[in-house]
């Protein structure tokens, strides 16, 4: 029996809830295999100056044409820079999705929520499908929702740290309170962590470092795909509650037994 569960973003139906990246690979030639074993439909890229000396091939060449490109604004430290990069990315002609990443912290690579909101307001109005990367801050997420973001992407842990869902509780709050999709991005180090994020109710996970840095990236991509599917199914199935027997230190309702005056 096939359940039609999909994630809709920017008018596109996504049947895979695993987004992948293209960064940090030993070789871009791995990308087509990663794309296949991950089953992903969304893939991130960055925008950089061409190096006229060394002619590395355009990463786009390695990305299956059916995938949705999600350029990021990495390098931007302010909303103005992010907006500029977004517009340049759009001019490439590969779609109008943009992942807003505004980071002026080189130690932890934590995003600037304020600048992110400013960029989102403008880019959403220009018709971009905006996916902002943020700390799991409820107030920021609400502002992004109001500004027209297509989703929010809270970090599980700092980029590249592979530490898992350190911000789990805060992500849970976003899932409860925010109406647009919550896509956990950054920090996921193991498939089990991605599974847990999906079980909690996240709409999707973006994984880059954990796949690129694995011994066998292609196999790891497949593992993540399985994990995301498992977590999503578990969430949809609705886990039964674990019954904990309350330890009654002293009864709080004993007074009710002394005859009901009413």
């Amino acid at each position, binding site marked *: 029996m096939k359940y039609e569960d999909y994630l809709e973003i920017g008018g596109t139906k996504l049947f895979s809830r695993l987004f992948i990246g293209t960064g940090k690979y030993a070789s871009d030639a791995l990308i087509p295999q990663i794309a296949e074993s991950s089953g992903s439909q969304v893939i991130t890229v960055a925008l950089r100056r061409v190096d006229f000396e060394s002619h590395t091939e355009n990463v786009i060449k390695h990305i299956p044409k059916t995938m949705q490109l999600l350029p990021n604004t990495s390098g931007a430290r302010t909303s103005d820079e992010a907006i500029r990069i977004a517009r340049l990315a759009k001019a490439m002609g590969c779609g109008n999705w943009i992942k807003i990443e505004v980071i002026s912290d080189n130690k932890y690579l934590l995003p600037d929520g304020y600048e992110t909101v400013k960029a989102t307001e403008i880019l959403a109005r220009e018709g971009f499908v905006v996916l902002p990367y943020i700390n799991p801050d409820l107030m920021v997420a609400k502002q992004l929702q109001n500004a027209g973001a297509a989703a929010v992407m809270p970090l599980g842990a700092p980029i590249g740290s592979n530490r898992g869902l350190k911000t789990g509780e805060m992500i849970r709050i976003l899932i409860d309170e925010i109406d647009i999709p919550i896509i956990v991005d950054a920090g996921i180090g193991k498939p089990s962590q991605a599974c847990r994020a999906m079980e909690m109710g996240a709409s999707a996970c973006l994984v880059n470092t954990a796949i690129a840095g694995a011994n066998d990236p292609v196999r790891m991509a497949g593992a993540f795909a399985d994990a995301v599917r498992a977590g999503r199914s578990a969430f949809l199935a609705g886990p039964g509650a674990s019954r904990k027997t309350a330890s009654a230190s002293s009864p709080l309702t004993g007074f009710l037994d002394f005859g009901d*005056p*009413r």
Partner: protein
Amino acid sequence: MSFYQSYLGYRDFPFAQYLDAITESQAAAALSKERLKEQDLLTLLSPQAEPFLEDMAQKAHRLTMNQFGSVIFLFTPMYLSNFCTNHCVYCGFNVRNKIGRRRLSFDEVEKEAAKIAETGLKHILILTGEAKKKAGIEYLQGCVKILKTYFTSIAIEIYPLETDEYGKLIASGVDSLTIFQETYNERLYETLHPKGPKRDYRFRIDAPERGCMAGMRSVNVGALLGLDNWRSEAFFTGLHAEYLQRKYPEVEISISLPRMRPQVGGFQPKFTVSDRNLVQIMTAFRLFLPRAGITVSTRESAVFRDSILPLGVTKMSAGSCTSVGGHTSKESGSSQFEISDERGVGEMATALASLGFQPVYKDWQPMEARGDESV
């Protein structure tokens, strides 16, 4: 969007059937969840949840300790006027009841305020019947101006106002709004309010939201338990509170659980709400909305109020009297309903302390000098 839309979604819900079909294991599952949904609230209000009352109480107690600690805020109601143009069949102030009608003059308001302030209370709740000619916005603004000099938090429990009218009172110094829907059952509501402006169900149900929009710092909702089946009333109250909390996260939302009490006119409520039932309602609320306040008034007896303290109460009235000018004068006009817990503020504070709670008289104080703008 209005809460009324949410109400409509459940208006014709077959509560009796649904509650009947709930199983004990469903109740147990709802009890052990970390985040409760609407259906879970209803499940916990069902008869099948009753065997788990002690478990519910333990969990409610833990949640309250975590969210609010052992602190209970005290306040007292001050009735400014019992003139009323409504014909609410269950209320002592019904225009058809032959009772002494009174409205406090500003002098009397001052005297009453001074008397109450002697007790150390800083939070006051002012009430009126619905008679705009006798106790309209300007009169209320005048009273609030006086009360501001005695109290740091002024709440109103009056007839529903438009948003800008709430805005005017807020500018004068009001910060909290209490308004009960009485019954969320729309059809029953009409029969209970045969005549008078209160007959407008929709206007009333939207009032808490208008208060939030106008800038009230806290808003208190509730249903008069006993008018209709308490299980559905408690459910709607919970939904209403959750709607407001979700839409206006900056406002402190709280719930009251007023049970029908004897009053002039002798209205007999159709449904009984036993102590056990009230405990079930209170603990279910606490589990459903860990951050909502729960207010218990002096409709309840001293013994009962003391017993339910650990179960989620955050605010209590003390030294109450429900007659106009009742704090200062003996001939004070008839009371709205009979008080049960007659303890004064000092007595309440001592009782609370002995039970392990800290009575708090003052929660906060506005920084800007409000009420100086001429509105």
